[in-house]
């Protein structure tokens, strides 16, 4: 059941077709499976292994290196609080403690209603807008404690559903590479110099 669905299998094949070596599609396919199920399942990893021509162990070995991949269900909203230097200097520790109290969980924990997972994370490239927070990898800037309370209230009430999709959906826009417009993959094993360079020499 939690192998890739037939619609996602088509997407997976399209993604694989953009790389000269199928294995390069590993991370995008892991994201796709996380989008489908909210986390990366064992069956999905076996399916991805079949698709890119490797073993499930290799897929897990790769996936486990990257923090965004979860191997068990987490909350609908992954609430990440930055604690790196710029946010630290402007009150990230206090914000994190506040978040722990509001949500009643420690970093890594999920609320009993399954809505929120709290994470203490490192730099999210919003350092001038500290302290910064991400919900499902969408930024919130200069988050004072009262802003945080409002954010949680809005998420609970479903008021941000348009802006913040459920955990797993990374980008709502996909690249589509039209066959008639594509230049095509360049095989690393075929030593061909580019046509425009030949023309010049």
């Amino acid at each position: 059941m939690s192998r890739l669905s037939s619609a996602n299998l088509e997407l997976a094949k399209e993604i694989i077709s953009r790389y000269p070596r199928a294995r390069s599609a590993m991370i995008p396919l892991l994201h796709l499976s996380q989008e489908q199920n909210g986390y990366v399942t064992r069956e999905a990893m076996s399916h991805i292994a079949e698709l890119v021509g490797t073993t499930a162990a290799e897929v897990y070995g790769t996936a486990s290196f990257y923090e965004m991949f979860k191997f068990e269900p987490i909350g609908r909203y992954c609430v990440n609080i930055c604690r790196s230097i710029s946010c630290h200097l402007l009150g990230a520790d206090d914000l994190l403690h506040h978040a722990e109290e509001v949500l009643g969980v420690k970093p890594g924990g999920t609320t009993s209603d399954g809505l929120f997972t709290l994470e203490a994370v490192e730099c999210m490239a919003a350092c001038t807008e500290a302290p910064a927070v991400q919900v499902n990898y969408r930024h919130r800037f200069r988050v004072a404690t009262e802003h945080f309370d409002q954010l949680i209230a809005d998420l609970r009430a479903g008021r941000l559903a348009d802006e913040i999709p459920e955990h797993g959906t990374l980008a709502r826009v996909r690249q589509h590479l039209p066959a008639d417009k594509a230049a095509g993959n360049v095989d690393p094993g075929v030593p061909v110099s580019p046509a425009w360079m030949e023309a010049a020499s």
Partner: protein
Amino acid sequence: MSTYPWAAGFVAGDRPQIVTSRFQYEDSYTLERYLATGGYEGLRAALAKPAAQIHDDVKNATVLGRGGAGFPAGTKWGLTPAGKFPRYLVVNGDESEPGTYKDRLLMERDPHQLIEGCLIACYAAGLSQCFLYIRGEMALAHERVGQALNDAYAAGYVGKNILGSRFSVDIALHWGAGAYVVGEETALIESLEGKRGEPRLKPPFFPAAIGLYGQPTIVNNVETLSNMPWLLRNGVEAYTAIGTQTSPGTRMVAVSGHVKRPGVYEIVNGTTTFRDLLYGDEFCQGIRKGNDLKAFVPGGGSAPWFTPEQLDLPFEGRLVGAAGSMLGSGAVMVMDHTTDIPKAALSLTRFYAHESCGQCTPCREGGTWLERILERICDGHGTESDLDLLIEVGTSICPGAFPHASSSKLGLEATPFPYKMTTICFVGPSAYAPVHSALTLFREEFEAKLTKRTLIPVTAGH
């Protein structure tokens, strides 16, 4: 305090703009706006000339890499072995150095500029396929670049026979998934090959010789490539007329921490001083609440720290290197006199300890040791010997003199950048950099936190 509500963090000013010229438009990320503001004209100009000539232009303009090392892009493109094809372009959009963000803004606000930059690089250096690697946590950047690529393909700017020429290249949008070390170019290539993001040993082989799939590969930063359209549209002379001879053009700099107006600024390269940046009216307007400046990190979390004594240094790579630090990724973090220095050092060191990929023992074990020792010092459980232990562990990652700034108060002379290292990449040394700076410049703050208890040694047999 951002100039435009749609570009949070960015602060405009009456200065030359090379990469942020479209930030003033709310719809700057659309193909329509891009074409109405000179978009893809740099590519047209490039295609009208032989590739070698475009490569020469980029070399002559001395476009320095904006990712951290500051290596000239044109020179890098020339390091591929002659006649060895195919070659690939990998765009490094895995920005995650603490304090740094500019690539995220450039991808969100002007994705077509980046795409055009990629195309110019591919044309000039004979790169046959491009992979645009965006950090996983940047969902909006994915959406903007994805849409821009779809539009650019539909309009014939990317793909087969671009603008009716013999130039054909595909750009594939690739996703990261949360790993700082992947910003190191060989780790980026490993990750793009569908593996764990562990850096490769170099030398002997740099990516320009042996990279993606074992082929010559150029890895360029997002900001570096975003300079190319303007350069091609306006010419080498116009580009080098801005900035200095060794550091021409502009740079995106993020100034964060205890300043009145933190922000991302596009500054003139090489001439703007740190004093201008921190205190200038058009920049950060001074330290918050009129407080005193204690220290600042001049070039991303890995950079050795400066104190007010270094304020008059210009934002120029060689000078900053000689003064004992580096410009790195264009991130300045400012600490005022209220800052708890050991805690600030802990925040930085924890980052690198956390992000160690685990390949090299000095980094994997040493980074964690540094973090734990700092933690117990900050918790009031540290002992005098812990300060020596910090240095001992740090020296096992970076043997010899570690770079630091001069200090007339402490009678220190600057030790120039860079350091020696016992690790494959810079993550290990980066864990030690904040510890070394903090301990060298503010040792008394560590001593004040040490426990006054006498510890009873554990003897054999107990």
